């Protein structure tokens, strides 16, 4: 019998495989200690697998080594290969996170389900998110977490699902969980007083589970009415996976099936039945993260109530102007007539009609989806939302013209641009000073790396753009050419017989059709893009330039940001006339996130550049992650939107077609006003940005 390896030897062997993920704080000592308890043959087995797994991922191998002793104890040595293979399979399909989840759950991985039938979240997140957005209500995001739960803005799902044997069934379990969490957010599970009410019970865990179980009955009844097909699938899952409810449960939940039952009714029943028999929550209910949800909800409500009130005060003011009334001269915070606004529900769902003095008015564009979200949160629009805000921070007040930290003389080397003040209905002349700031180039091979990493997409985009070159077109009725134009010949002969002259254009000719398109990409480099967004923007630029070079269109790239009206900044990455070069690539790599987003001046600046280009079609593509905004506060809100809109109107007047690609989830509120209903596309998943930009460009210029 061989001797088991010593601690030092184990450490050494492990380090050889996983040194890439070790550091001063994380050594191989802990897993080595675990392995030291095992018999020699078992140690051999484990180390062999560690070596194999390390060939794919050192991190995964490390985690495997850590979990191995326990798994050996629970499952026995025969099941270890299956467990390792399941983890590797999950890694291949969906990455480290799901694979680590498989390692943590050896029974699941090697049980009746097995990871073979398992479904990893990245495989289905796109479908689930589109599914949730099709359902009504606030558009939710899908993200991964250990336990399924929701915070009313995101639905969190576990990284891998392998409870059932078939892939389709595991997907249904994902779908049921997503739909149930959606229902929690939609039908008011997270009441404002939820935490207090639950705290009244001695056993917090028991109270939460009981509440989840009761809510599940209420929400299931709602879903049965609205989505019967889904409800059937969910009931089938319950029959397969859940334990039967205790006696008396059916009577307890009877009232929860009523259409107007709410979370309060569930809480009452919790009090009644707490002492006796409570059922377990269904398999798709997830966990209750009440604190998190209520915090997110509170933040959102504050934000949205403010937005609604500001938008309503705008609307009231506009109505007054139109009808010739004088706005009441009020002190700070004076409300313009409480009770003048009212909402009426038009149909089930968030279609609300806004009434001002009992006359229907169009909800202001900023506020439409916000109103819907508020309605969903409060299960109706609360009266305090309908009281228009008095003059507040978003209005240009008596401090007009004296914004903080701003010089009014023209700084050296800056361009001066006017700004549109929608209140005045006129421009503020020479209001913004804008400079072109050089981008610090970064020679770190970013563009090459991106092209290599996304080689599939890069190739596809480039090929599709190449196809746009149009190639040859057959021109008809030419005075000379390689083929006879039969139509022209017949027409000419008929004409000749009727006595007309034989017209000369009787041939067809092939000719290369030149594309006559110039495009300028204006990329948001404000502070809010720092991180993922900036990375995605630069990736998109790398891929797009690669494809555009194949197409031959003239194009320019400029970043923009700035702080206050006296320090607008535009970052030239590629001039319209400049050829693509390693310097341009380095500038793409070096485009960093900066300050704010005072869009109007930047648009005016690049409009000047683009208007000089003599092509027939000129395209301005604005790539942004949010609304116009600036340090001095008043640019955010209606003022900035109106100024940006005016700058776009000016651009159109000079023959330029503007288009917007936005990452802002709330873009639907204001983008139609800026770019027109068909002039923008919203990208909800940042990783889709490069593909969407390519598609958009292709569609616009064909």
């Amino acid at each position: 019998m061989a001797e088991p390896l010593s601690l030092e030897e184990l450490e050494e062997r492990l380090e050889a495989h996983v040194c890439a993920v070790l550091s001063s704080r994380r050594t191989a000592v802990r897993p080595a200690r675990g392995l030291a308890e095992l018999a020699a043959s078992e140690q051999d087995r484990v180390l062999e697998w560690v070596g194999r797994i390390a060939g794919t991922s050192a991190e995964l191998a490390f985690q495997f080594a850590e979990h191995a002793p326990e798994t050996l104890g629970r499952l026995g040595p025969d099941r270890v290969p299956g467990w390792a293979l399941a983890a590797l399979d999950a890694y291949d399909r969906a990455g480290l996170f799901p694979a680590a989840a498989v390692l943590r759950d050896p029974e699941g991985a090697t049980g009746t389900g097995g990871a073979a039938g398992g479904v990893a979240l990245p495989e289905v997140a796109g479908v689930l998110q589109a599914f949730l957005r099709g359902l009504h209500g606030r558009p939710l995001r899908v993200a991964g977490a250990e336990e399924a739960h929701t915070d009313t803005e995101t639905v969190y799902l576990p990284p891998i699902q392998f409870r059932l044997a078939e892939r389709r069934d595991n997907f249904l379990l994902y779908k049921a969980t997503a739909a149930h969490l959606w229902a929690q957010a939609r039908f008011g599970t997270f009441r404002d007083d939820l935490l207090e009410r639950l705290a009244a019970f001695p056993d917090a865990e028991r109270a939460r589970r009981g509440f989840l179980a009761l809510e599940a009955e209420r929400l299931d009844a709602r879903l049965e009415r609205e989505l019967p097909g889904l409800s059937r699938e969910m009931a089938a899952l319950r029959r397969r996976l859940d334990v039967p409810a205790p006696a008396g449960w059916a009577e307890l939940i009877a009232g929860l099936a009523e259409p107007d039952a709410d979370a309060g009714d569930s809480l009452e029943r919790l009090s009644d039945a707490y002492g006796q028999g409570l059922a377990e929550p269904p398999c798709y209910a997830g966990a209750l993260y009440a604190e998190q949800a209520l915090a997110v909800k509170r933040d959102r409500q504050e934000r949205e109530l403010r937005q609604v009130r500001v938008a309503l005060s705008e609307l009231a003011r506009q109505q007054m102007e139109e009808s010739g009334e004088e706005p009441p001269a009020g002190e700070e915070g004076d409300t313009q007539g409480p009770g003048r606004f009212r909402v009426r529900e038009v149909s089930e769902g968030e279609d609300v009609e806004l009434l001002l003095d009992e006359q229907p008015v169009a909800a202001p564009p900023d506020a439409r989806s916000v109103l819907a979200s508020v309605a969903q949160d409060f299960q109706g629009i609360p009266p305090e939302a309908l009281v228009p805000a008095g003059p507040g921070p978003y209005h240009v007040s008596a401090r007009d013209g004296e914004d903080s930290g701003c010089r009014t003389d023209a700084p050296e080397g800056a361009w001066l641009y006017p700004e549109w003040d929608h209140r005045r209905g006129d421009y503020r002349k020479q209001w913004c000073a804008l400079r072109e700031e050089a981008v610090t180039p970064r020679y770190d091979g970013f563009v090459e790396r991106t092209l290599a990493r996304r080689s599939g997409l890069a190739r596809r985009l480039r090929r599709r753009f190449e196809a746009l070159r149009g190639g040859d077109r057959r021109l008809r009725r030419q005075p000379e050419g390689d083929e006879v134009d039969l139509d022209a010949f017949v027409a000419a002969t008929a004409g000749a017989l009727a006595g007309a002259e034989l017209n000369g254009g009787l041939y067809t000719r092939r000719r290369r059709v030149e594309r006559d398109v110039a495009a300028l990409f204006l990329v948001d480099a404000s502070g809010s893009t720092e991180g993922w967004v900036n990375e995605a923007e630069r990736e998109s630029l790398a891929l797009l330039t690669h494809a555009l070079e194949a197409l031959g269109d003239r194009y320019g790239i400029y970043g923009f940001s700035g702080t206050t009206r006296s320090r607008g900044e535009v970052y030239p990455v590629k001039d319209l006339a400049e050829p693509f070069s390693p310097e341009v690539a380095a500038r793409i790599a070096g485009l960093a996130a900066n300050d704010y987003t005072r869009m109007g001046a930047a648009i005016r600046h690049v409009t000047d550049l683009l208007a000089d280009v003599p092509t027939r079609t000129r395209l301005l593509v604005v790539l942004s992650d949010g609304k116009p905004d600036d340090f001095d506060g008043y640019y955010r809100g209606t003022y900035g939107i109106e100024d940006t809109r005016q700058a776009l109107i000016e651009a159109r007047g000079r023959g330029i077609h503007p288009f917007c690609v936005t990452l802002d989830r709330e873009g639907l509120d204001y983008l139609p006003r800026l770019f027109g209903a068909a002039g923008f596309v919203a990208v909800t998943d940042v990783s889709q940005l490069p593909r969407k930009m390519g598609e958009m460009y292709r569609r616009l210029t064909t």
Partner: protein
Amino acid sequence: MPARAMRPEEYYIEDEPYYEPVADEGQVFEAAYRNALPVLLKGPTGCGKTRFMEHMAWRLGRPLITVSCHEDLTGADLVGRYLIQGGETVWVDGPLARAVRHGAICYLDEVVEARKDTTVVIHPLADERRALPMEKHGEVLEAAPEFGLAVSYNPGYQSVLKDLKPSTRQRFVALELDYPAAEVEGRIVAREAGLDEGTAGRLVQLGTMTRNLRHEGLEEGASTRLLVHAAKLIAGGIAPASACRDAITRALSDEPDMLAAVDELATSLF
């Protein structure tokens, strides 16, 4: 039974085409027609523009001549050309000239697809002159008072190269049509397909859900027409989930994620 052949100007619509009004578009169209003003119909695909035209043509008692516009449409395709028939040259009117000559309503569908140098052919008809110059034929055709001109287009996600010039747009009275409200749409679907209102209502729900997905990856949500297709399949005995899959989902998108999501929405409803 062989297909019926007739001259375009004899295409009178005999039976009332079913049309549910959304607002006052019928009255506005009629007023425009009586005032000899041309009409521009804007709206997403499948929302009832063509059906509306058929209904109005029936109501006004005029034949309807429809031209589907495309990029290779030439002026001669609209106005007419000389053809050789039996050794003689004969002038043959195009659909537009026919409509003008016989006082029919001419409907140019998807007018932005035609090239701009073709579209300008309709300019003299679309303003006070109401005349069609036919240079090759050597005459100017003045429209009869019963002549009517209508064009349509879909203002959705358009290429910047395909747009209506202001000089064209501003000759028309523009009517904007859209998908009807849920109740009305349900009635339309039920009636067109002979389906019960409950199932029709669920189809309309699915339509609304797909319209929620615009700007998320679907270019356009399901049109009323697609819903009617699915309804007809269901009325004919196909299971609802399959009908939705074939008539709606597959027609909307080719992207796998989007297909899967819309399928799941459909199976959730039925």
